[in-house]
């Protein structure tokens, strides 16, 4: 059962600011999702290997070869405040 404090913790970890109204809304929506998962748990899975991937694929790799990168102008096109080829962000305090 998801409570308001769980939603607020997840919001904090996700750097989201939620209103009290939104916390209530998402609590009920997330509980709906969990109920659905509870339903799935009723399935008999004792003989099934834990699966992390549904594709029947293994060992997909590429050769170690350097290829062209994007031009810096393109890389920074989505950056709100680029400067001298860098992403510029509010100062990070350590």
């Amino acid at each position: 059962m998801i409570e308001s404090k769980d939603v607020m913790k997840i919001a904090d970890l996700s750097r989201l600011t939620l209103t009290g109204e939104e916390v209530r809304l998402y609590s009920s929506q997330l509980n709906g999702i969990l109920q659905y998962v509870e339903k799935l748990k009723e399935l008999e899975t004792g003989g099934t290997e834990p699966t992390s991937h549904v594709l029947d694929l293994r060992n997909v790799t590429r050769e170690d070869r350097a290829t062209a990168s994007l031009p810096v102008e393109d890389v920074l096109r989505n950056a709100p405040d680029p400067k001298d080829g860098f992403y510029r962000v509010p100062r990070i305090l350590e």
Partner: protein
Amino acid sequence: MSVRYETVIGLEVHAQLLTESKIFCGCSTKFGLPPNSQTCPVCTGMPGSLPVLNEKALLFTIKTGLAMNCGIAPFSRFARKNYFYPDLPKGYQISQYELPVCERGHVEINTGEGFLTRRIGITRIHLEEDAGKNIHEGAGPYSFVDLNRAGTPLMEIVSEPDLRSPKEASAYMRKLRAILRYIGVCDGNMEQGSLRCDANISIRPEGSTKLGTKVELKNMNSFKFVEKALEYEIKRQTSAVKNGEAIIQETRLWDTSTGKTHAMRSKEEAHDYRYFPEPDLVPFMPAREWVEEIKAGIPELPDARRVRFIAAHGLSEYDAEMLTSERALADWFEESVKLGAQPKAASNWIMGELMRLLNEDGISIEESPLAPAGLVELLKLMDSGTISGKIAKTVFDGMYRSKKSADQIIKEQGLVQISGADELGAVIDQIIAANPGETGRFRAGEEKLFGFFVGQAMKATRGKGNPAMINELLRKKLAGN
């Protein structure tokens, strides 16, 4: 009555792999290029882009695991480690969690007490991507982000809490570095950050088997700082415990300028990484034949080579340890022996004169202007008596600086040893004639004056006189014969 405390240290070492391209995209891993010039949709985390694993990064990790006696997992996969930081474009780092590539290995370290070795356990080695770089200096109210390093393949080598002192911790680091360089998977440069180290350290009353509260130490970018930070932390924790204060589980940063560690400001939930299997990468099941092939490509490692150098070349433990610390240095030595050098003599010249000159120039053995053949030529000229040991140092220096042959330098500078009895005899006669006072006192029994006469003879021959010959002639002539 005072309680003695024991230190418990475990290290997490991050090693950048020497691949040409990044771990999940084709961007170059070259260092020092303009900011963000080595990035693409994959390593900047653009929606819709997909990672594909660099096969060499996996190969290098397996190779490292084998070199450190680990088991190679028949099945491994990647996981997402979620956190927010400006140098992490996706909001998660692709790493490994419960199924790493390698597990349960060990390396042997020299304890510094005689030549006893101790086995240090390796818990796991996993593969992950590096983050970008944040620059704060001179940025005013801003920070600047460069993502060129984001996506560089990193290996994390986690040790068991087996280390008992700062000295052991640095010996372990040195051993890892040597192995990584021997197998060619990491350049081991701590200053440039291609080899990084975090430490977990706690103390407990001697004899206790329970672990104390551990503190994580970061930001130690040299062997010296690893030792200093750990030493400081032992003192801090010991005095806290003696004063009845509790040790707080926290991350502390080593500050080079103050020589202290200080607690990092961090939010409580900073370690809530919410790992889950990476859905964008399929699992890996390295074929047994492939692992065998990788194993066959591992060269003789430092420990085995040290033991062989002692057995085959009659070197001391110390000399063998030093010579095998770097693969290229050990190669240089073996090449000179193969060309006919007497092993002990070659070892002395390499660790004395050659290392001194290389250190002065701040270059590595790979960049040495002098080749093993040069040293062998010099040793032969000494053996044949053409030059004295003293002059040989001058010639060695000349060979290193000018890249000329020993022969050429000896001819140009007129350094051939003077061994002729007539020539040396004449020189000694002159010295005796010019120093009647000293001669009289020596003949009256003042034996220590002999050194004075040897010095005069060497000076007169500008160091080229054959020392054995000078001794013999001086004895004869001073005796009055």
